[in-house]
């Protein structure tokens, strides 16, 4: 599945609902689908706020693929990129006072894998996957 949409906040809901509907073809619980929605919301929100700095005329691309028991999602933007990806993945890190740096923490907690590829001026690609039946979100010292 491929979605491409303008970088406006109203499209965050469109993206998460569409990916969740796509994912519901395999046996996720409602709770797992909620987790997928949060992860998509955070990734797309990051693209709009940080990648494109709220410019409404850019595009975010979301790809999703299903196997028998796994969903893989890729969220891409062509925005300003992240200078220090490792630092951005730290829970306390945010360049915005109210954003709290929780976005990547939620993605990491709710998905089984999370990879972030980015460089200044070269956009950001977030790749996440989630298997069916992996249970509750990880809550542990790695966060």
């Amino acid at each position, binding site marked *: 599945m491929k979605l491409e949409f303008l970088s406006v*906040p*109203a499209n*965050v*809901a469109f993206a998460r609902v569409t990916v969740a509907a796509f994912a519901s073809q395999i046996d996720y619980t409602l*709770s797992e689908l*909620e987790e997928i*929605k*949060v992860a998509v*919301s*955070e990734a797309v*929100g990051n693209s*709009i*706020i940080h990648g494109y700095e709220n410019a409404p005329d850019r595009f975010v691309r979301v790809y999703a693929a299903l196997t028998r028991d796994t969903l893989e999602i890729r969220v891409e933007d062509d925005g300003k990129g992240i200078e220090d990806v490792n630092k951005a993945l730290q829970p306390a890190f945010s360049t*915005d*006072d*109210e*954003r*709290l740096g*929780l*976005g990547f*923490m*939620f993605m990491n*907690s709710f998905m089984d894998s999370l990879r972030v590829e980015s460089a200044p001026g070269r956009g950001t690609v977030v790749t996440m996957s989630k298997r069916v039946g992996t249970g509750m*979100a990880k*809550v542990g010292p790695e*966060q």
Partner: protein
Amino acid sequence: MVPVRLDLELKQNTLIVRLSGDLDLAITDNLRSSLDEAIDKQSVSNLIFNLSQVTFIDSSALGVLLGRYKRISRRGGRVCIVGLQPQVRRILELSGVFQVMDEFPGENVALENIG
């Protein structure tokens, strides 16, 4: 633009904020300005967020709630949360919100505790 689904009621000096629907990036600017206007216009000491009708929340909306917590706590007030649906509670638990905001089963219990 998605309208902020927001109902505000002032009881004594406590502002009760009832929200509904999906809270994400689409509503954060409106929510932030509506809450700040209400907090500034009326002499609000405490806040109660009633999230019983909230079906989804992400970090952008959570940031607005925590930003209002910062404002109220600077005045020496308290911020409480009531009526969490399970999927919303998990997000709040992961975020550490309960370290600074108390949760109560309903508005009346929260009002008694704040008072």
